[in-house]
């Protein structure tokens, strides 16, 4: 070994050791996150929580683990823990739209509607193409009676799906159809409700769609002559849109 190499050894060795530890821990953290995410998507919430907690025990500021842990708490109905975890994360990552969206879900579950809307608006400000946030916002606007705003959100969702070449969600078609019927746009309402009935003639809301169609369009609605329609007419005076799916974003 030359003198130069001997002199450099004390400098190189600690760095190499630190890099090895970092790489090892990085691999462990990544594996834990992966396994936690798999457990979360499979609905094994305790396992998911344990995996994310393990990451956080070693690295309390790991934002991905914190967010997924908050989502896991939320899915488990532990809203208080979800709130504290996600609020902590909101301070650490104020510009992450996913964090604001997850917080909006917490507020939604807690029944704190104005705060839910504020978080959704913030999420959309940070990411205007955040589809799930648009869905939640549309729902919140319907619940608050702001039908014009809700209609605009559903139109966005419909056009976004069409733009991507994907089929428009039946819930979007149904809700937008109802809103159009309510807001005095019968032509578009008829078109949307017919599209909904073509897609989902047996769905729970189909009977309501037929009722509205028979009121605004005199001709028979498609699917209305189904011989064995198993559904009784809905007795609910109001049928809020189905809650948007609580899909956890990928780690």
């Amino acid at each position, binding site marked *: 070994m030359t003198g130069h190499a001997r002199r450099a050894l004390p400098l190189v060795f600690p760095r190499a050791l630190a890099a090895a530890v970092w790489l090892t821990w990085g691999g462990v953290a990544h594996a834990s996150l992966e396994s936690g995410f798999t457990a979360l998507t499979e609905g094994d919430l305790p396992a998911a929580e344990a995996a994310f907690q393990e990451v956080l025990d070693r690295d309390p500021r790991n934002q991905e683990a914190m967010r997924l842990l908050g989502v896991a708490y939320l899915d488990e109905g532990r809203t208080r823990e979800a709130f504290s975890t996600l609020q*902590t994360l909101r301070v650490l990552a104020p510009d992450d739209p996913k964090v604001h969206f997850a917080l909006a879900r917490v507020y939604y*579950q*807690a029944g*704190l509607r104005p*705060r839910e809307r504020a978080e959704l608006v913030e999420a959309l400000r940070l990411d205007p193409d955040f589809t799930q946030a648009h869905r939640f916002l549309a729902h919140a606007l319907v619940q*608050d009676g702001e039908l*014009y705003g809700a209609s605009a959100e559903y139109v966005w969702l419909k056009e976004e799906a069409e733009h991507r070449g994907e089929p428009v969600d039946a819930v979007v078609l149904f809700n937008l159809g109802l809103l159009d019927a309510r807001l005095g746009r019968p032509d578009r309402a008829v078109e949307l409700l017919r599209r909904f009935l073509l897609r989902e003639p047996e769905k729970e809301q189909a009977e309501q769609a037929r009722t509205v169609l028979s009121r605004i369009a005199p001709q028979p609605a498609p699917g209305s002559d189904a011989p064995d329609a198993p559904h009784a007419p809905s007795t609910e005076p109001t049928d809020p849109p189905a*809650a948007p799916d609580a899909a956890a974003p990928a780690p």
Partner: protein
Amino acid sequence: MTRGPRLALALATLALLPVVPMGAGPARAQEAAPEPTPAQVIGQRYQDVLDAARRLEQNDEALRKNRENGTRLARRVEALKKSPSGVMRDAQLQDALKDLRGAIAEERRLRGVAASLAIGLRIQRLNLARESGADADRLMAMGESLVLAGDLETARHRFEAAYDDLTLPVEVPRQTTQMPAEKAAPNVDLRPRGDESPDELRTLALILRDAANRSAYNAELWSGVLRRLRAERGTVAGLLDLAPPPSEARADVLARLDAHLKEVQGEIGARRLAQVRLLGEAAVLERRAAGEEYAMLKDAATHGAPAQAPAPEGTP
């Protein structure tokens, strides 16, 4: 006196002096007193509300008793006035009149106290509401500071306490995918079908009026946003004047801001339009309800009671 005893005397004098310097006693005492926790402050506000309500109740009770006394005295005065005149009766009448005047004065005083207590109660209730609302925000702010300081564990506890405060007055629905019915906005077709009774028409009109009020409220909210945005635009324009970027970029920033302002204005316009339209629809429904009711009444007056069974055919 030699130096040794003098030193001992001085030390003894010092030892006998009070530990707290003169004039600093009350200040030290104040520092020593622990600051009340937010929960204690809210508890105190709640107690204030209860005290104010109890005082008002006591005053109401005194008012009731005084009124009974006044009624009894008024009856006595009337009876004395009707009784045969005499020195004794006049003296009794004078006494009764004096008592009655006292009761009337007391009534006036108690009414004033009641009004003042009612205002006090309202203020105490407002204080309580403000304190409990502010408490959650304060806890959130504390939590945020703790996160920034690196104490994540304590921050989580603060956030949990804030959550408890936020959700305390709210009844969390068990079925979270569906909001309570009274809060849900009607999203079914509310347009009248033509066969509604006057009462149903009035209910529809009320719902429309409610929606109109909501639209007006939202328009107000958006107006606040618009004011703030305009102020921000002024600030941005000023900053751009101070440090001008290339002219195209400046125009672009301001044009985008103007577009946002226009959007907000559009939102306000839409809500105001919705308000007017809903109020118009509600008025139409109310007029129709009144017209149908009038027609029913007229029909009843012309052809007898509508509940009366029609006579069988063929009877004279």
